[in-house]
């Protein structure tokens, strides 16, 4: 289907971009990598009158680590940059794993982390590891800047709290204590949308689970933390019975539509497998 016509605007700064969003509001769509927007426009699902291209804003393309600020990633950082980042591999391995299983070679060269978050799809591949690491998002709008937890940013399938605002930065709390993480995207090819994707982070002391984070995507309208499962693991000894019993509670945390009951089964399997994998990776910063 041929794209409907639109005005094309290419702001050079965040301030310019925000001003355009404020002017054109619902008639404008931001474009970054374009790997979602243009597909939706081609299918006729969207027909904005104005396209605001933020790719030229090079100040939003970075991966930075510093002891005080932690790990910060500019919203326009490409998924391929994340795959090739030594800092991310070292500090936040499951984010590297998620980026590596994202789309295809070409899509990784075009898509951005900000785009993946702002598209807010239930199966967004980068969201689960970001949830495990308590990602904080910086938003810039007409009324200034605000910081929100990723957990509170996505509100429904394809919905988030942006209000004529632009996501500018993702900040990750790097876990300084020895911990293990793991990520898996279930699908036949990386190009596929995830059937279920899951990220786990765990801290174990004296063979007891001191803290654990489990995030699942594609099993509810938004990615979710499996908090009941986490509760059932905290403070307990890590063994297969404890893990088995804890993962049974995932039914209280996720809400796939009933015809997708296999997702409940697969979520349990994934969580079990990933906890075990994360435990084997303990001690390092993986």
């Amino acid at each position: 289907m041929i794209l409907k016509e639109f005005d094309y605007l290419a702001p050079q700064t965040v301030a310019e971009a925000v001003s355009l969003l404020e002017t054109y509001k619902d008639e404008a769509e931001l474009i970054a990598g374009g790997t979602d927007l243009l597909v939706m426009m081609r299918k006729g699902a969207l027909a904005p009158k104005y396209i605001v291209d933020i790719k030229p804003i090079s100040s939003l393309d970075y991966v930075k680590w510093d002891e005080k600020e932690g790990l910060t990633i500019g919203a326009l950082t490409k998924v391929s940059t994340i795959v090739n980042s030594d800092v991310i591999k070292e500090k936040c391995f499951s984010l590297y794993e998620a980026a590596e299983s994202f789309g295809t070679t070409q899509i990784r060269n075009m898509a951005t982390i900000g785009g993946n978050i702002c598209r807010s799809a239930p199966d967004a591949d980068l969201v689960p590891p970001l949830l495990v690491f308590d990602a904080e998002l910086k938003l810039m709008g007409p009324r200034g800047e605000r910081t929100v937890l990723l957990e509170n940013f996505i509100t429904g399938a394809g919905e988030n709290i942006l209000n004529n605002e632009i996501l500018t930065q993702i900040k990750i709390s790097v876990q300084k204590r020895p911990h293990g993480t793991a990520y898996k995207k279930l699908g036949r090819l990386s190009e596929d949308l995830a059937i279920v994707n899951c990220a786990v982070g765990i801290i174990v002391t004296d063979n007891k689970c001191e803290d654990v984070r489990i995030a699942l995507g594609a099993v509810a309208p938004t990615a979710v933390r499996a908090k009941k499962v986490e509760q059932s693991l905290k403070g307990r000894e890590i063994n297969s019975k404890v893990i088995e019993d804890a993962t049974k509670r995932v039914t209280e945390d996720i809400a796939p539509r009933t015809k997708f009951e296999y997702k409940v089964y697969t979520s349990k399997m994934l969580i079990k497998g990933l906890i075990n994998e994360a435990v084997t990776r303990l001690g390092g910063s993986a």
Partner: protein
Amino acid sequence: MNNHSGIIDLNVNGKIYTIKVKNNWSLLDVLRDELGLTGTKRGCDEGECGACTVLINGKPTLSCLILAVAAQGQEILTIEGLSENGELHPIQQSFVDLGAIQCGLCTPGMILSAKALLDSNPHPTEEEVRAAINGNLCRCTGYAKIVEAIMAVVGKTG
């Protein structure tokens, strides 16, 4: 001129083309219909098949999902830019020699993805080759000859 079009400069295969385009034209549309460079193919037009793959600043990119107006100021390489003075690039020659081409629709995209891989990793394993071309779908060959053809030039390009 209304707000739905503009004049842009595109750098394709080392040459600058100054053309008038509409905002809603993709780079693929412009390469094929305005510049007559029909080596880049239209497969799905929605970023799933990779037939439209071109190299932008050396990186495999889907030209069906790039607006032409957004492609200015970049170095674009299409399959036409690969051969020099009528001589096929070693990857192209290998595809021909090893029978890695059936209908040919996936071929330009495949070859460009392979070139990008070999430019950054001159000695890939077979697994790395398969991963690099995972965004280029082939409906004819089953990929075996394609992977063979790429492996056959490992160490011989660049």
